[in-house]
């Protein structure tokens, strides 16, 4: 039983990370048909314009630009520091926060609007109480 649980497929780290069995993972946004605001996660109503039931799911881009960041040196026990907490504007809409990886965490290396790629990988080995592993998203500098 427990061996079967460990062998089960990884889960998405957030509800808006989609893992279609037969295709690449992607981030899902919900766009308002009235005002075009893009949200992460499902919702019925638009908090930008108040429109009801105009939300439509769409696949968010895997390309974006670094909007802002912090380099985190102090965190909770078990969290590896330092790391870059990045705010990324995705092409075509949607703003996402995540770790920017594969670059030395030094302000000298970081330029606002530098292009980044969204990549999907195991969630740093973190597992839930039931032993499930997770797939997360990360940002990498794009060439």
């Amino acid at each position: 039983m427990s061996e079967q649980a460990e062998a089960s497929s990884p889960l998405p780290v957030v509800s808006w990370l989609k893992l279609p069995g037969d295709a690449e993972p992607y981030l899902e946004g919900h766009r308002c048909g009235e005002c075009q605001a893009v949200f992460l996660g499902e919702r019925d109503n638009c908090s930008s314009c108040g429109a009801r039931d105009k939300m439509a799911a769409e696949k968010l881009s895997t390309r974006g630009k670094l909007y802002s960041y912090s380099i985190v040196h102090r965190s909770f026990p078990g969290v590896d520091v330092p790391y870059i907490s990045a705010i990324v504007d995705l092409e075509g809409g949607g703003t996402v926060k995540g770790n920017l990886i594969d670059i030395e965490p030094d302000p000298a290396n970081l330029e606002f609007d530098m292009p980044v790629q969204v990549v999907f990988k195991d969630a740093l080995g973190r597992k839930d109480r039931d032993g499930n592993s997770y797939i997360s998203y990360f940002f990498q500098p794009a060439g």
Partner: protein
Amino acid sequence: MSDVYIMGVDMIKFGRFPEKTVPQLGATAALMAMDDAGLTIQDMQALYCGNLNQANAMVGQRILQEIGQTGIGVVNCANACATGATAFREAWMSIKAGVNDVVLAVGVEQMGRGLLGGGGGGAGISKEGLLGSGTMPAVFAEAGMEHARNHGTTFEQFAKVSVKNHHHSTLNPKAMYQIETPLETVMNAEMISYPNTKLMCSVNVDGAAAAVLVSEKKAREMGLARAVKVRASVLTSDPFSDRDLTMPDVNAVTRRAAAQAYEMAGVGADDIDLVELHDCFATAEILHYENLGLCKEGEAGRMIDNGEVALGGRIPVNVSGGLLSKGHPLGATGIANIYEVSTHLRGEGDKRQVAGARIGMTHVIGLGSACGIHILEKAA
């Protein structure tokens, strides 16, 4: 509608008081404020109590159990770091509405140590350090780096905020710390979340502050010599902005509140003699110079470089020492700020007195988000 006056206001010295309960701390401040007004608990017609960490535990009633259970109505409120300002504003509103003539507002908090935010919760695995950071130092660092992006603001300029506020606190015996922190000390302190070092993060302390608010009729009966008139009381939530749900927008919520406050008071930023604003992190203070209209867009860096916001400057900001050095007991902060500004309007600021202060502003931000702004004026 009646104007509203502050007739009594005080705060306990901020510190760490693990041997005291939250109601005991609140009761101490309440008694100090009533003494300042020359009134007693029997004179109070309602109590508005702000506390965050025991928001479900009837703190206001438990304060009355310490100082007098007169049976008055009690409202307990929680609104993140705008909690104290919200309690004060509810008290103000009850007088505005003509329901009460004399009311008590108390803000109180007992804090642990360490990082706020980023605790996660919810199902699955912890997201901290996986999907960036939700800790407050990081969130406000990201807000500061947005300013750096737009205006070229530097780590050194952010750090200067902390130098200034720590210096101010050396003149405030009620501040948690009275320690000078030179620029190199601030910049070389442990980095928490770039660009916020440890000395650029507000101090978690226990604290309480209270105010007695009265109607104009009551104020005139009592005499206006030390009275402070509430010229504006405003509370806003964050209007939608594109990144708001990923990156809390402390700017739009403040700008909206400031515009409403100036309109309600019938004054402009040039009329303000001192400001106590929400410097939960050094990065945050820089943003609010522009958000509150104390300078034009992109001039915040110049404000801190030129000393315009230091005691003796054009528009002194956080002469109490601010949250960075006076300390930040979440629910008490929004009334402690009102105490500070009132003290200057009364000419009782001693070594840190802002000369000739007649009008002052207080500002708090509760992340999530809420913004409370008050504009206060010397009555006599």
